[in-house]
């Protein structure tokens, strides 16, 4: 179980899960563009899944992230030990920036995940997000959490919006290598398919990047009066200071 | 009455000769009784077997890990002997057998084109210009069949037909397709096969591999080979290794010419040291010059690169008819101004004429001032016609890697303009004398592969070197070594004993002498100069005054070497200068021996062409009356003239004929 190839399978298999997750997450987020009702209803439905499913999924994702990160850490440690001294001149013929910086982009992604959870899921950074309540999108007219306005409020802080966009760019680069590499590690890639898979991985990365980034970008654009597409039927809780 | 008298004279003469040889040096070839096709079978039956339980009591040293050494070590290990295998490279997989490109012959007759064991035997004897032993060559042809099977089973990826069966091609000098090949890297693939078998034995502990170790002397106790002295090339440590038998599988001596197709590390030291300890050295003047090498480009050159002979299957060799055209681009020389000299002189073999013949023809053309390229030492090998006929893709498929190699070295694209080729030293048929059991004249010292003299006579056919190395290692020595081992009792050799200690001391002294040499000239410069002398006077064409001159020059050069050599560093470390100095030191002595042998062989045969012995139209003239023998040299001491002995070659099966490829 300690073999290098076993660790690589772990990376690839957990990678598949996370690659799939980010896509679903992105598709969910994009409902912001459909308006307050859509996103709030979607978020409410997710949060009210039966506990075993909700917490099972959360735990599963968490475990995948942890395995992915811990294995990566082990691999990197072994790799450094395998080449204790680097060349005076370090060059590459084929490997690009994203392939060579998986450790960096990965670590930043891990930091981002922690921040993101604290920011929007657990909401310890801005506890006032918990007070955002609305009936828009509620299935039965009762007050539910106003996710839509939380997102708007969240990205109205410039530094946070920029941080999110940068992190999504790093994710894009991470995926550009990771998605194609995943096929290789699982023995499902051939040289004749490599360029196609590389293209697919790159395209996938960019889709994820644009899909996620478009929201903070639009929020910022609206803040500076460039667009006015994000309408908000601001409930009682919607206060300007957020 | 007159006839019987003559016959009895002849018998007397033969007896006397045999007696003389046996008396002075044990040159009993031990050729088995019986008709030629049965000799090997009879010999295997009459060979003594070593009891399986006793095999592990015998220690065997194998020096060299090429096709002969690797296959011998693996097979002997498999049989249960304790084997110590040594190589100077950093891993056994790098021995120079790896560089053989074209293929390996096997008398399988898969092509149904009339091949047979007997035909391969005959072609090899004839190709060797009737200077090899019938019995050995026949055994080689018989074993060729098993070699192919063995290698296929090991996973050697030979070329295949679309139906999945093995593909063949015809190869220099053969009119049947019997050559098996793995692209242009047959030697590599066969060596990797032997290496994988060897690795299996190393893993099992039956063979102990010692890499970066160079054999510097042979330990002889009471006339028997009992071990070797090695220098660890990484640490400089000199060490005594004892064993019940020593197998020298150390390749040829082509590097005595400095520029050759051999690897830089190939050297004569192991066999030459055995010669100095009493092993006869046979036919050192039989050297093979390969016609298709990339020409020399300048003084910096450290080696010559061979282009597989298979290129001659589709390439046409030519030079301009007029010397004035030599400077022109080949495309500017019209068809009728080109001289396809091989096709002209040898209509039935054409561009596939044997190596010695096509090499010499190239030299003649260049001597006439019709050579092309830098220094006028080159001829064209033109693929234009084949590309027109078969298409560039077919040619690329057949020889792509060779064309790439050619372009890397010369910077020229051979699909667009003809290659330039010139002959270079490639293989040495001479080597330590061995009997039918592959044992040298020192009991217990066996010699396999290119290092021995036995199978190729005066000239080797293409695709036969790999065959011989593997035949000796896989299929001969495992049987024949028993004939010796059963005559001795295993072990009991004291590595601290007098003989071992003395041998070690002499090696130590030699090494320390060289390390302390603080003269002015590098060993490389001596090697280069020796090579120039050898190529000039003992190369493709030789003559008496030239050889005598060469001997004098080599002696002077050796004196200078002893006085003026410069070696830096010390002996207890990796020291490339020291390594080379030791090898060059032996080459200097050996070069003289080679010239002496060439001088005394007053005939032209195979790779040995003496200008005094040729027909009017420049063909070699063999002298079967006086020279149908192997010349075996016995070391008589430093500064002494070595003694020349003869082993007569008896031809019972083939009729000696003029080798004609017209």
């Amino acid at each position, binding site marked *: 179980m300690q073999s290098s190839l076993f660790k690589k399978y772990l990376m690839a298999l957990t990678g598949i899960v996370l690659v799939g997750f980010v896509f679903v997450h992105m598709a969910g987020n994009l409902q912001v563009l459909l308006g307050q009702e859509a996103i709030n209803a979607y978020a409410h439905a997710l949060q009210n899944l039966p506990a075993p499913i909700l917490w099972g999924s959360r735990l599963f994702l968490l475990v995948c992230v942890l395995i992915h990160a811990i294995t990566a850490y082990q691999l990197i440690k072994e790799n450094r030990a395998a080449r204790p001294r680097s060349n005076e001149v370090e060059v590459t013929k084929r490997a690009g920036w994203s392939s060579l910086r998986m450790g960096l982009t990965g670590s930043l992604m891990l930091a981002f995940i922690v921040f993101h959870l604290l920011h929007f899921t657990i909401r310890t950074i801005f506890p006032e997000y918990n007070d955002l309540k609305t009936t828009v999108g509620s299935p039965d007219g009762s007050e539910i959490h106003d996710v839509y306005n939380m997102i708007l409020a969240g990205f109205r802080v410039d530094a946070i919006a920029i941080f999110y966009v940068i992190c999504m760019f790093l994710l894009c680069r991470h995926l550009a290598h990771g998605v194609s590499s995943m096929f290789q590690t699982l023995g499902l890639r051939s040289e004749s398919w490599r360029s196609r898979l590389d293209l697919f991985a790159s395209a996938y990365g960019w889709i994820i990047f644009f899909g996620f980034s478009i929201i903070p970008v639009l929020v910022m654009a609206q803040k500076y009066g460039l667009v006015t597409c994000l309408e908000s039927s601001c409930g009682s809780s919607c206060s300007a200071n957020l | 009455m007159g006839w019987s008298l003559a016959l009895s004279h002849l018998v007397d003469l033969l007896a006397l000769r045999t007696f003389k040889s046996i008396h002075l040096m044990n040159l009993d070839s031990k050729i088995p009784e019986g008709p030629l096709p049965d000799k090997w079978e009879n010999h295997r039956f009459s060979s003594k077997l070593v009891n399986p339980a006793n095999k592990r009591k015998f220690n065997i040293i194998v020096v060299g890990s090429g096709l002969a050494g690797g296959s011998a070590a693996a097979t002997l290990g498999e049989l249960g002997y304790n084997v110590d295998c040594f190589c100077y490279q950093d891993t056994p997989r790098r021995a120079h057998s790896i560089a053989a490109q074209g293929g390996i012959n096997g008398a399988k007759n898969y092509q149904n084109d009339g091949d047979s064991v007997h035909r391969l035997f005959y072609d090899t004897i004839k190709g060797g210009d009737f200077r090899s032993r019938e019995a050995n060559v026949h055994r080689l042809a018989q074993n060729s069949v098993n070699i192919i099977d063995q290698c296929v089973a090991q996973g050697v990826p030979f070329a295949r037909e679309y139906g999945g069966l093995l593909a063949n091609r015809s190869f220099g000098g053969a009119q049947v397709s019997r050559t098996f090949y793995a692209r242009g890297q047959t030697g590599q693939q066969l060596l990797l096969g032997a290496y*994988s078998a060897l690795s299996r034995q190393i893993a099992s502990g039956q063979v102990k591999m010692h890499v970066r170790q160079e054999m510097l002397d042979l330990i002889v106790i009471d006339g028997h080979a009992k071990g070797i002295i090695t220098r660890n090339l990484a640490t400089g440590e000199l060490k005594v290794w004892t064993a019940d038998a020593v197998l020298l599988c150390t390749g040829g001596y082509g590097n005595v010419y400095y520029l050759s197709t051999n690897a830089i590390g190939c050297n004569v030291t192991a066999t030459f040291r055995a010669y100095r300890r009493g092993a006869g050295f046979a036919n050192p003047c039989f050297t093979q010059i390969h016609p298709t090498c990339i020409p020399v480009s300048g003084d910096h050159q450290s080696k010559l690169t061979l282009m597989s002979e298979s290129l001659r299957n589709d390439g046409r060799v030519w030079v301009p008819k007029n010397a004035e055209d030599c400077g022109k681009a080949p495309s500017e020389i019209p068809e009728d101004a080109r001289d396809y000299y091989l096709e002209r002189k040898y209509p039935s073999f054409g561009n596939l004429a044997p190596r010695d013949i096509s090499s010499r023809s190239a030299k003649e053309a260049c001597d006439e001032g019709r050579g092309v390229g830098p220094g006028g030492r080159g001829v064209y090998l033109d693929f234009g016609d084949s590309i027109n006929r078969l298409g560039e893709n077919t040619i690329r498929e057949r020889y792509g890697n060779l064309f790439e190699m050619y372009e890397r070295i010369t910077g020229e694209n051979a699909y667009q303009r003809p290659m330039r080729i010139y002959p270079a030293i490639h293989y040495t048929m001479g080597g330590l004398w061995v009997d039918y059991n592959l044992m040298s004249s020192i009991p217990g010292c066996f010699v396999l592969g290119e290092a021995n003299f036995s199978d190729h006579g005066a000239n080797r056919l293409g695709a036969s070197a790999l065959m011989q190395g593997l035949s000796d290692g896989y299929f001969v020595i495992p049987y024949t070594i028993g004939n010796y081992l059963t005559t001795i009792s295993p072990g009991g050799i004291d590595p601290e004993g007098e003989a071992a200690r003395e041998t070690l001391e002499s090696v130590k002294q030699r090494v320390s002498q060289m390390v302390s040499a603080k003269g002015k000239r590098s060993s490389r410069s001596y090697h280069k100069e020796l090579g120039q002398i050898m190529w000039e006077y003992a190369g493709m064409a030789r003559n008496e005054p030239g050889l005598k001159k060469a001997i004098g020059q080599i002696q002077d050069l050796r004196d200078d070497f002893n006085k003026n050599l410069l070696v830096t560093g010390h002996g207890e470390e990796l020291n490339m200068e020291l390594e080379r100095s030791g090898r060059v030191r032996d080459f200097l002595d050996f070069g003289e021996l080679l010239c002496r042998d060439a001088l005394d062989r007053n005939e032209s045969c195979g790779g040995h062409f003496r200008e005094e012995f040729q027909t009017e139209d420049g063909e070699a003239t063999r002298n079967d009356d006086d020279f149908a023998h192997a010349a075996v040299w016995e070391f008589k001491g430093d500064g002494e003239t070595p003694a020349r002995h003869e082993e007569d070659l008896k031809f019972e099966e083939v009729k000696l004929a003029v080798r004609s490829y017209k």
Partner: protein
Amino acid sequence: MKLFLKVWKQDGPENEGRFESHVLDGVSEDSSFLEMLDQLNEQLLNEGKEPIAFDHDCREGICGTCSLNINGFAHGPENSTTTCQLHMRKFEDGDTITIEPFRAKAFPVVKDLVVNRSAFDKIIQAGGFITVRTGSAPDGNALPVPKKDADLAMDAAQCIGCGACVASCKNASAMLFTSAKAGHLNMLPQGQAEKDSRVLNMVAAMDEAGFGNCRNYGECSAACPKDISLDYIAKLNRDYAKAKVKKVFS
């Protein structure tokens, strides 16, 4: 040509290494990289200095002995070329060339530019063979091998074991070597009987030797003088997974 050379010097495995600078004039464009080093060594010798140790043997690109990182590239910047086949016409007059040994923990430096690559032998000893006793082979044509399979096996078998894959890998991974060796035998019908144990044992030996992990950069294949394809790594990954699963469930 005049060249400025920055060459790694290291007295032994335990010593610290350092760079030394040399100027070499009068280099022929037609000489090979190793012949250029020969020339440098002759120059050093004439100056009474110790020459630079480097590995080399056949000098025709097949034995795999030569190594060297040249300007950061294993075997130099040219593709599909070993150091011995790299010719000086690929450099410019006045160039500065940095020459280092192949760097990996599994390839300790012996001296200067010479490294010990016996870890590769250990990988082969673990399973890079087909168990067949001498003399026990069936007729060569008894087992047809489809041409395509034979060609693919040959593509992998071309590996010269030089270690450029390890040297060019930022993680010093030996996956390309191991996969080529295992792939060659696993591709052929003769190699099927030991296929599973072969991959398991060879990978274990590879890990044991201290090589790094493959991160699918593809640098190995780009540096490989024989252009061994990454397909063999994918195949090894596949074969290993199958073998492991079979082992767990048997």
